[in-house]
């Protein structure tokens, strides 16, 4: 029983980083593909498309920080909490990165034909980033309450 709890604790410890990274990979892929497609249609401004495509990479950074903030020593007492906190924050980060990738692709698609909407078209991606930040900050706050 204790071994199972400890295993859950390890899963929870690595989940924010792993799930955040998976989300970032797919999110950046979506944005990157759209950026590559848009480059065929425009004559300049390639750099900003690549910059937008990289937006979903922040979730991996949040995942690293949450993993580092969780208690270093895994015990049967803190494992359930670590699993819940790590897995749920990881899932939140992963889905936010996936959604942000799609939002970035849509922004790139819109701004390639209408460059003047570039800033405003990034608003949905920024909102999604906001939700990822909520998940990240509250994971940090709750990590401080876990028994060590």
């Amino acid at each position: 029983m204790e071994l199972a709890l400890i295993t859950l604790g390890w899963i929870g410890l690595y989940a924010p980083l792993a799930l955040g990274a998976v989300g970032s990979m797919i999110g950046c892929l979506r944005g990157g593909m759209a950026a590559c497609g848009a480059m065929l249609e425009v004559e300049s401004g390639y750099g900003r498309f690549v910059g937008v495509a990289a937006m979903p990479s922040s979730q991996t950074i949040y995942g690293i920080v949450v993993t580092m903030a969780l208690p270093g020593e895994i015990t049967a007492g803190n494992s359930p909490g670590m699993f819940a906190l790590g897995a749920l924050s990881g899932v939140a980060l992963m889905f936010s990165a996936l959604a942000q990738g799609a939002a970035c692709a849509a922004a790139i698609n819109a701004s390639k034909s209408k460059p003047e909407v570039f800033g405003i078209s990034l608003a949905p991606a920024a909102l999604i980033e906001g939700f990822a930040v909520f998940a990240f900050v509250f994971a940090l706050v709750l990590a401080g309450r876990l028994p060590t």
Partner: protein
Amino acid sequence: MYYDLIASLPQLPYFERAERLPITPLRLGQRLSRLRPEHADQLNRARPLVRWRTERLTAHTDSSLSAAFSKLMDSQLDAPLRDYIAFRMTQQTLLAALRRKRDRLELPEGPNSWGVGPRVHHIRKHWDAPHFGLEHLYPWLPRASEQLASGDAIGLERLLIDLNWRWLTRCAEPSMFGFEAVMAFVFKWDMLQAWLACDPERAKIRFTELIDKVTHVANA
């Protein structure tokens, strides 16, 4: 999902506002080479049947179109493409029925000899009803019927393209980077190409040539 393909396609203006094709046929073909083989195959099979070209009608008889439709619908197709083919061919069937009614022709006997789709039997059954009793299901029928009766060919063309354009826009909305969006772009591009090919000056020259040819034959 086709993030790169959709992003590489230009914005298609509404057909009445377009002055030229935003992408050439050659370039469009190159971009469509990124489609997955099964989707490319589906589009290649569907385009000759539903594309907005006059050759489509002149190169086929009613029964050959009906056979092509049945063959296509019996094959493996993604749901949005299947729905669009059904929508487009039902529209063609309703128009064929309206034309026959305007010209006081009876419907030919035999299944699928003049139209295809789920409305064929309904139309035959309600032949004497105004608009075959389908005006609530297809609100454009009365207007199309009036335009047919008044010989307003351009108005009818505009109405039909608009209906198809809106259908395809609605179809592509839920999945901005999916096959639906690619399919909608391709069929809209076909419509735009056909619309822009309508040139009154060229039509006048062609008409004069045909009149000259006929009168020359008659005089000889």
